């Protein structure tokens, strides 16, 4: 590999780690392939501890029947699935990023499940993108309380 390509790849990895969004990549047996720094920092679990391990075995608080159905839909239909905090407050149980002044104990999350194809065009992995939407969710819930 040429030097600048290597450098660019290095940057990409740094950026993937630095963005304030969770990225998890699962293979078709739900084993964790990528676990970025957002996920590491919020869960306290290092990538080396979860790599190649089954997501549902690592995180037993996840409703596995429910999430499996969503993953299956991504793999079978090749289309994205979106999960909002309004239908389920969170998938991964992480503490709120402001544990003291934040208005909820847990982080509210939106998730996007994205099919990933291999070079042959087959869906080989699913990417879970986890957004922290705690601010938005608590504000909206507070607003609804005022209106009621």
């Amino acid at each position: 590999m040429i030097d600048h390509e290597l450098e660019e790849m290095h940057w990409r990895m740094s950026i993937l780690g630095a963005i304030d969004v969770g990225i998890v990549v699962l293979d078709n047996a739900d084993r964790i392939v990528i676990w970025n720094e957002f996920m590491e920092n919020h869960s306290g679990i290092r990538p080396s501890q979860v790599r190649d391990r089954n997501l549902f075995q690592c995180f037993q608080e996840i409703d596995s029947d429910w999430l499996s159905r969503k993953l299956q839909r991504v793999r079978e239909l090749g289309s994205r699935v979106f999960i909002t905090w309004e239908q389920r407050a969170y998938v991964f149980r992480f503490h709120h990023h402001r544990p003291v002044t934040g208005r909820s104990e847990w982080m509210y999350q939106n998730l996007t499940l994205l099919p990933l194809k291999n070079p042959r065009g087959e869906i080989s992995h699913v990417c879970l993108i986890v957004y922290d939407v705690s601010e938005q969710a608590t504000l909206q819930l507070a607003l609804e309380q005022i209106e009621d």
Partner: protein
Amino acid sequence: MTLRVTLCDDSGMARKQLLRALPQDWDAQMHMAEHGEQALERVRAGQAEVLFLDLNMPVKDGYQTLEAIQAEQLECLVIVVSGDIQPQARQRVLALGAMAFVKKPMAAGEVRELLQAFGLYQVASGKLQLVEQNKPALSAADKRLDVYREVANVAMGQAGEKLARMLDTFIDLPVPNVNFIAPSELHMAIQAIDTEQAISAVSQGFYGAGITGEAMVFFTDTSVAGLCDLLGQELSGSPRQQEIEALMDVASLLTSSCMQGLAQQVHIDFAQVQPILVGQDQSINDIVQANQQRWQNVLAIEIGYRLQQPAITFELLILFPEHALPILDRHLAHWLEERAEDSHD
């Protein structure tokens, strides 16, 4: 005696809306016209004792049509149905001999009262009949819409197939409605879905190649309940959360797969933003009206999906703002040219 009536509007969506608003027990034969010139042909052919007339149309607009009716001294009662509700517009059309001026969208009750007031309609006097007409040759603008329509058709079919798999049921696929619409017409399109029931909508933004657009899926309360039944065991949480999950799942599947279908054809990779629920706390009409100053002309692809068992309907509306159109056309250039060649044959 059966009345001959013509609906003239360049927007298929608008004609459909008006047709739905007319009393179904009206003893009338309905003809369609897409612009003023066609409307005049209907009037001359005796197919328009009553003419519902839009104002802003290509080829010949509503004002010109009224002028021609006056000039030729044609026998025809004209009801102008317009999104433009400025006082000047009303004055102008009444001065040109229109019998009435009503604003879009027309509500069913309003139409009935109006027709009764002019002695054109008695309750249970017959049945509304729609006369099938041969499609006239397409103009350049129509051809462009025709291309969009075909692209939408393919995308819609793909989305429908995925939805059928997800819901394990048969889905009737309609011909998509593709139109350029003004803000008042978006308002109308939403009302056309159902005037009786509360509507929930999921809106999802998308972007790619400099285009930003919005896809919305509208559900009536009965269709939400039907979907909850259908997805039953897949849903979790409180009843409200189950509803949201059903809406999100159906909407994001439809939107994602339709956008995927469009993307393949126009060769633009559309990225999608997290969908949001609209219309829970605020009526959708309010949201649309509040923002209508920001945009003028929008390409709207309207697709009504219908499940047979159980009977559930919902509508997907894909909106491309004006700035997106040159980019879309560039990506569809090949098709647009091909179409132009076809027309020479």
